[in-house]
């Protein structure tokens, strides 16, 4: 009788990559809810549209490569990419913006490299950066958070949100009320002291951007859930936040107009928490070892601060992540953990004889 012949181990822990991804999607929900409350239904429209596109494109690629699409769609990684990109886009973004963004994310950044697991760059961030560079106008039209301006109209509901993104669906085009994001304002200000700025602009809240504080806290919660579920280790996100805070602390000169802003401001504004817990943690494109992830996260933190404060772009999470993605393989090369029974971390370089 032919018995089944397989390699050991014969047991494995339940679960698969798809379940990991579904945890990530779950953890994104609080942030999405807060964003919807603040900016209206634009975020939801973005997410749904992006997910549809991502699944469609992934299925198409798999067809082209003669692979069974369902097997790949089931890992849900395209959905994570889509949701993360959608969350990073301004609500009420025109439909074609999402098409271009997802196209670059899924087709170029992910599937040209062979699909899930192979991409050296974070797909969602590639999509975002391409859009930011190509369509800065559309990409900087953020809706005003609800309640930031006293006599503001209510945020858009589902139907008007749909109409705002797909103008051809509706006879009366809808325009969302937009305004510069807090980081934008902060960057362009060069005359007011930080305190005055906080007082004078509607964009600012207690310590971060108005409303953005809540968005960040919600993403932080989601991140804490993933950490608890051991979807990732603490190394990368925490070192990124620490590095960012440290940089802010060093350059924070008690609020002059040239100040870069306080640590709290940087931690709770823009995409900081989303970045720390959902983007920096993308396992595929980050460094592999725990020590490596410490460096990786710290690099991102430092770069975020430098670009935010001295560069051209108001928020820098995407650029910083891509730059460190680029550096990750080298980091890996130099941060191999010490193997059992070896004396030092990179003994491999010494004990390799000439061959």
């Amino acid at each position, binding site marked *: 009788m032919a018995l089944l012949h397989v390699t050991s181990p014969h047991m494995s822990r339940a679960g698969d990559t798809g379940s990991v991804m579904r945890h990530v999607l779950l953890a994104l929900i609080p942030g999405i809810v807060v964003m919807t409350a603040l900016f209206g239904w634009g975020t939801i429209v973005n997410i749904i549209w992006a997910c549809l596109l991502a699944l469609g494109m992934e299925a198409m690629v798999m067809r082209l490569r003669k692979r069974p699409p369902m097997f790949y769609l089931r890992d849900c990684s395209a959905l994570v990419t889509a949701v993360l990109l959608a969350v990073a886009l301004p609500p009420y973004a025109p439909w074609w913006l999402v098409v271009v963004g997802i196209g670059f994310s899924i087709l170029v950044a992910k599937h040209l490299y062979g699909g899930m697991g192979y991409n050296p760059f974070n797909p969602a961030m590639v999509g975002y950066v391409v859009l930011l560079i*190509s*369509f*800065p*106008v*559309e990409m*900087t*039209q953020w809706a005003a958070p609800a309640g930031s301006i006293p006599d503001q109209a209510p945020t858009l509901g589902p139907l008007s949100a749909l109409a705002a993104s797909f103008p051809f669906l509706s006879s009366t085009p809808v325009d969302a009320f937009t305004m510069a994001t807090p980081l934008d304002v902060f960057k*362009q200000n*060069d005359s007011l002291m930080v305190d005055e700025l906080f007082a004078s602009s509607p964009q600012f809240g207690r310590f971060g951007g108005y409303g953005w504080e809540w968005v960040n806290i919600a993403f932080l919660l989601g991140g804490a859930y993933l950490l608890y579920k051991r979807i990732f280790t603490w190394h990368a996100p925490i070192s990124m936040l620490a590095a960012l805070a440290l940089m802010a602390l060093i350059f924070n000169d008690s609020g002059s107009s040239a100040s870069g802003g306080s640590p709290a401001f940087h931690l709770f504004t823009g995409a900081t928490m989303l970045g720390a817990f959902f983007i920096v943690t993308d396992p595929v494109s980050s460094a592999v070892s725990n020590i490596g992830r410490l460096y990786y996260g710290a690099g991102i933190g430092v770069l975020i601060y430098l670009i935010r404060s001295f560069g*051209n772009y108001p928020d820098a999470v995407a650029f910083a992540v891509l730059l460190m993605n680029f550096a990750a393989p080298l980091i890996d090369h130099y941060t191999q953990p010490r193997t059992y029974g070896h004396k030092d971390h990179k003994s491999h370089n010494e004990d390799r004889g000439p061959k």
Partner: protein
Amino acid sequence: MIGSAVTRNGVLLGAFAMLTTAIIAATQLGTKDRIAEQIRQAREKALLEIVPRDRHDNQMLDAQFAVNDQELLHVTDDRSGFIASDGGNMQAVILPVIAPDGYSGKIELLVGINVDGSLAGVRVVQHAETPGLGDKIELKKSDWILSFNGRSLNNPLPERWTVKKDKGEFDQFTGATITPRAVTKAVYNALLYFQKNRQKIEQLSVVGQTNGSDDNGE
């Protein structure tokens, strides 16, 4: 034997040096004048766009004067201004101006001002604004920059000398206010500078103290 090889190679290389130099020198001689002329034309072209040929009869490139003004023009490194005159009478002056507060750093401008204090024209020489956003200040991308033509210190009134978003007269671009705001401010400052220094410049033009001959453009 070694010696002879060295000599032979040396002579050969020498011959090549001669030959190649000959080719280059011949081309150089043949094109020298035309190149100088081209360089001159290229430099003049920007100026002529602001003050066309029919408004003056002098060579503006030969009517340069050094400009050094931190306060209004933000020009510190001895750039040249140019004077257009007709029959010895100053018609207009073209000032180098820097707008220091563009979205991504400095924007270098040339601002032409007629003797009557109105703007003859403004052109952007160099900038690093975002493509697709701030770069509409280039004439190539949009004719926004032409909206300064004919304006002067009191047209519009000083408090309206800014972009519409700040309740001024000039358009901004969708999604980009900083760049036009910076340019507008710089142009206004240039007008102020001209008002202040008009006497001095006019004197220069009369005396013909300008110096432009030893500048060969390299």
